[in-house]
């Protein structure tokens, strides 16, 4: 059972590696780490209010009511 799992794991990991998801994006790793618990967290931003208004207007224009 353990051997099967290892083989399968290598199959998926091997596939990912062959597809180009190995060390080629090492630079990405260095600079696009995400801060924990930040998804969807909104912080103050000078430009955000204007853009959010546009998004909301657009959303209402297109939503079906």
């Amino acid at each position, binding site marked *: 059972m353990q051997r099967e*799992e290892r083989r*399968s*794991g290598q*199959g*998926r*990991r091997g*596939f*990912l*590696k*062959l*597809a*180009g*998801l*190995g*060390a*080629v*994006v090492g*630079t*990405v*790793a*260095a*600079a*696009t*780490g*995400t*801060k*924990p*618990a*930040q*998804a*969807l*967290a*909104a*912080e*103050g*931003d000078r430009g*955000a*209010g204007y*853009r*959010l208004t*546009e*998004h*909301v*207007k*657009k*959303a209402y*224009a*297109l*939503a*079906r009511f």
Partner: protein
Amino acid sequence: MAEGRPGTVRGGMVEDALADRRLDEEDHTRARVYGLLARYLAAPPDADLLQLTRGLGESGTPFGRALAELAARAAEASVESAREEYHELFIGLGRGELLPYASYYLTGFLYERPLAELRDDLRTLGIARVEQNKEPEDHIATLCEIMAGLIEGRYGDGTLDLQRRFFARHLEPWAGRFFTDLERAKAARLYAPLGSVGRLFVDIERAAFAMAD
């Protein structure tokens, strides 16, 4: 930086979240690719993001070549040109050229059942939307950021099965079509190869998830 916008992925190193969890190199890369997509799609790139993009890619695979093309376009782009392009693609006057929302791609309208289903899953995962963020959560940037968090174990139990289920439910049905549209969008220059990267990555993810753990 990315505040009040979908995804709101920030640059910086993941530290504590991974302290007691070692990721395979490939999963680490997957998380970073989702992070890269999220950053570009949540907001126009800042100078730092353009600069790091210029170093990406290689020639050995279609995915690597798409990253290399993105790098080349990033070398040509400026923060200003990228901001204008982002605005035309996603903001516009009333709407941008593209509407990167699951509800829109799956039903033709915003705020539809795909969003409701996503909200159910986010509640289960304990991911809350901060009040100031008015974007519906089914924005492609937010979904990519969540995938990065699932891979890294910042959300959920970090298992591949949870990633697979989230991908199948909230990305696979539509993200490939969105990235293809982005590749072909009239206003896309820097974002065209980002569309290629996203399309190829979704294909890779779908195929990899179909393989046993």
